[in-house]
């Protein structure tokens, strides 16, 4: 499956990694839901670090939507909230 890290591009990841990534993602989501500023940054970092470690870059000329999209590495919790609320963080 194709995973995008915002600001970094797309990575190809084996489907078998889904469970592991979902677990890391749940921790991130829980931090956002709890409004847990302290837990947020490490949770995002852990998810991004793992995705970068197991993913291989998708060729630049491939035009395909991603199955999963991750916030950029320096994203704040407020930015992630906006991203999730579809409030126009995505232009266009």
């Amino acid at each position: 499956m194709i995973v995008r890290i915002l600001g970094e591009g797309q990575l190809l990841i084996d489907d078998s990694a889904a469970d592991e990534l979902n677990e890391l993602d749940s921790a991130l989501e829980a931090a956002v839901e709890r409004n847990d500023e302290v837990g947020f940054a490490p949770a995002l970092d852990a998810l991004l670090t793992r995705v970068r470690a197991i993913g291989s870059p998708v060729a630049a000329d491939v035009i395909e939507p991603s199955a999963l999209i991750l916030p950029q590495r320096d994203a704040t919790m407020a930015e992630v909230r906006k991203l999730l609320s579809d409030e126009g963080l995505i232009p266009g």
Partner: protein
Amino acid sequence: MVALMGVMKRVSLIFKSKANRALDRMEDPRETLDYSYQTQLELLQKVRRGVADVATSRKRVELQINQLQQSSDKLDRQARDALSAGREDLARDALTRKAGVQTQMSDLNTQYTSLQGEEEKLTGASQRLQAKVDAFRTKKETIKATYTAAEAQTRINEAFTGISEEMGDVGMAIQRAEDKTEQMKARAGAIDELMASGALDDVVSGPRDDIQAELDRMGAGHDVDAELARMKTELEQGSAPRQLESTPEPAQGAADLPSAQVAQPADQPSAGDGQ
């Protein structure tokens, strides 16, 4: 339900729904391709301008860092001059200002690194988008030539959704860079004002350079004061040994001279002989 889906999936769905809404607004799928291509070209222009803007801001910060470094160096020299002239009060003043300048510099260095990071990110985004736009152009001509409007729909949807995601990503990166650049401009403007007000830079180069002015004013009297101080020191040092040793050796006397005097050998013979 949505809350349990995970951040990654939710964000991807939001991107897709945006693309779908845009697709729904298009009547002819082939026109969608051309229209999308136009907006891609516009975005490419925008991201390139963004890279240039960030670079301009970065250079401005670099310039300010250099100016502040010069201020810091000069204040340091002034502090030394003041101290060797026996003006500890002036030296303290200069060092206090130097500390202020250094605080500004360290702040600017942080901003500089941040802008450098934004520039790199935007440059990467620009390159990725360029590659995708080129691929899209080829793809759209292939789709238009090969398929009927109805057949083309699925392929168009996929290409459109894919490129929309890229464009959304790039658009956000541009926005973030713009925000940082704006903050930067405000700070840079504030520092320019500080320099213009004489609080930082003019201490060194402008008419309000009171430390230098004081040092200059002391210029004429400087040698006299230094000479007086040296004489006092000599008298104090000279009187004690002379009481103990009946025949003071000239060589020993010279070795006892403070280092400040050694730096001015021309003055030594007359000063030493005279006393």
